[in-house]
C-alpha cells in the first residue's frame, strides 16, 4: 500500500492539473462564443454570394466556365483543416484519420494527389507519412480574418484554374453543437452542384455588366474562396467546442480521482493511527 506521503503528493498534483484543465475549459468556452459570432458575421456574405452565383450559373445560356466543369481527374488536392494544438479530444485525429483512409483507398501513387493543410497537427501528420504538401498555414489566430487566409484561398483556387489540380476536396470538423462535431468531407471544385440548385429556385433575373462570362470569371473564384473561409470558421468553432468538452471531461476525471485518493488517504491515515494505538496498548500490556 502506498505511503501517506505518496498519496498526498498525488492528490496535490491532480488538483493542480484540475486547475489547469478548468482554466482551459473556460478559455475555450469564451473562444467558442467568439468563434460562433464570427461564423454568424460571415453568414450574410456567404448567403448573398451564393444567391448571385446560383442565379447566374443557373440562368443557362453561355454560363459555362472551367470552374463549373468536371474534367478528368489526374490530380486531386485535399484541403485539410486541423488545429495547431492538441488537447482537443478527437478533433485532430478524427479528421486526419478520415483523410488518410480516403487517400489510401483512392490512390496508388503519390503523383495522383497532394494535400493543402491548415494547422500544425495536420502538417506534422502528413510530413511524417511522406505525403506531398502543396501549401500550409500554421499559427492561424483563433479568430481568423479573411485577410489572414486570403493568400491561401486564392492560391488554392488558382491551382485549380491553372489545371495543376483537377479536383479539390475539403475535410474539416463541422460544428453541429457545442457537444457534437462531425468530420465532413465536401467536394469543393469543380462547382458541380450549382446548376442543380439553381433550377429549383429562379428568383431574380439580372442585367449583367459587362456580360455573364466576365462576371463569372470574377465571381466564381471569390465564391470558392468564400466556401473555404466558411469551412475554416466552422472548423475553428468546432475546435474550441471540442477542446471545451475534452477539458470538461478532464476536470470531471480529476474530481473523481481526487475523491478516490482522498478516501484512500483517510483509510491509510486511520490504519496508521489504529496501528499506533495497538502498539502503545500492547506495549503497556507487556509491562504489567
Amino acid at each position, binding site marked *: 500500500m502506498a505511503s501517506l506521503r505518496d498519496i498526498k503528493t498525488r492528490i496535490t498534483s491532480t488538483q493542480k492539473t484540475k486547475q489547469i484543465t478548468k482554466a482551459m475549459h473556460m478559455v475555450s468556452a469564451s473562444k467558442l462564443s467568439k468563434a460562433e459570432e*464570427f461564423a454568424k*458575421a*460571415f453568414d*450574410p*456574405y*456567404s448567403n*448573398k*454570394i451564393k444567391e*448571385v452565383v446560383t442565379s*447566374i450559373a443557373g440562368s443557362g445560356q453561355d454560363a459555362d466556365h472551367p470552374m463549373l466543369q468536371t474534367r478528368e481527374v489526374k490530380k486531386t488536392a485535399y484541403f485539410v483543416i486541423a488545429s495547431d494544438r492538441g488537447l482537443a479530444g478527437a478533433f485532430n485525429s478524427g479528421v486526419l484519420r478520415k483523410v488518410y483512409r480516403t487517400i489510401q483507398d483512392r490512390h496508388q501513387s503519390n503523383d495522383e494527389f497532394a494535400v493543402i493543410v491548415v494547422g500544425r497537427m495536420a502538417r506534422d501528420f502528413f510530413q511524417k507519412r511522406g505525403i506531398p504538401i502543396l501549401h500550409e498555414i500554421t499559427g492561424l489566430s483563433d479568430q481568423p*480574418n*479573411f*485577410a489572414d487566409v*486570403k493568400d491561401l484561398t486564392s492560391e488554392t483556387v488558382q491551382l485549380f484554374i491553372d489545371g495543376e489540380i483537377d479536383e479539390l476536396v475539403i475535410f474539416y470538423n463541422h460544428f453541429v453543437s457545442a457537444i457534437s462535431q462531425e468530420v465532413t468531407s465536401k467536394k469543393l471544385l469543380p462547382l458541380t452542384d450549382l446548376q442543380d440548385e439553381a433550377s429549383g429556385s429562379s428568383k*431574380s*433575373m*439580372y*442585367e*449583367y*455588366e*459587362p456580360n455573364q462570362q*466576365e*462576371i463569372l470569371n*470574377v*465571381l466564381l473564384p*471569390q465564391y470558392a*474562396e*468564400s466556401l473555404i*473561409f466558411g469551412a475554416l470558421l466552422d472548423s475553428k468553432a468546432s475546435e474550441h467546442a471540442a477542446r471545451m468538452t475534452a477539458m470538461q471531461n478532464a476536470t470531471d476525471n480529476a474530481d473523481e480521482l481526487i475523491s478516490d485518493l482522498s478516501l484512500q488517504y483517510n483509510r491509510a491515515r486511520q490504519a496508521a493511527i489504529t496501528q499506533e494505538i495497538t502498539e502503545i496498548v500492547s506495549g503497556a500490556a507487556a509491562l504489567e
Partner: protein
Amino acid sequence: MNTLTVSVVTPDGPVLEDTFEMVSCKAESGELGILPGHIPLVAPLSISGVRLKGPNPERIAVSGGFLEVRPDKVTILAQSAERPEDIDIERARAAKERAERRLQAKQDEIDFRRAELALKRAMNRLDIAENR
C-alpha cells in the same frame, strides 16, 4: 425623395447598412451611378472608392468586390471594405512602399501582378483615408 437601401458586406461581417439617394462607383467596365428604381444588375467592381450620396454621405474603400442592384436595394459584396475612419494609414503606407519595392525588382509575372494589385489596394486606401 426616393431612397436606396445600401448594405456593404464582407466575409468578416457587415460594414454598413443605411439608406442613401445615390450610389456612385467604379465597375470594371467603367463608372456607374445608381439611382433608386434601377433595373436588377450585377457588376464586378474595380479596386476603388464607392461614394454613397445622401444626407449623410459615405465613402468606402473596396477591393475584390461586386455590386448587386435591385430597384430599392444595393448590396456590395467585397473581400474587403473599409470606411475612411477604419483605415490603418500607417499599414497602407507600409504596404504601398513594399509593393513599390517589389515592382522595382524584376520578378516573374505572377509576383509582378500580385504586387501591382497590392499597390492598387494600398493607394486606394490612402486616397479614401486622406480625402475624407
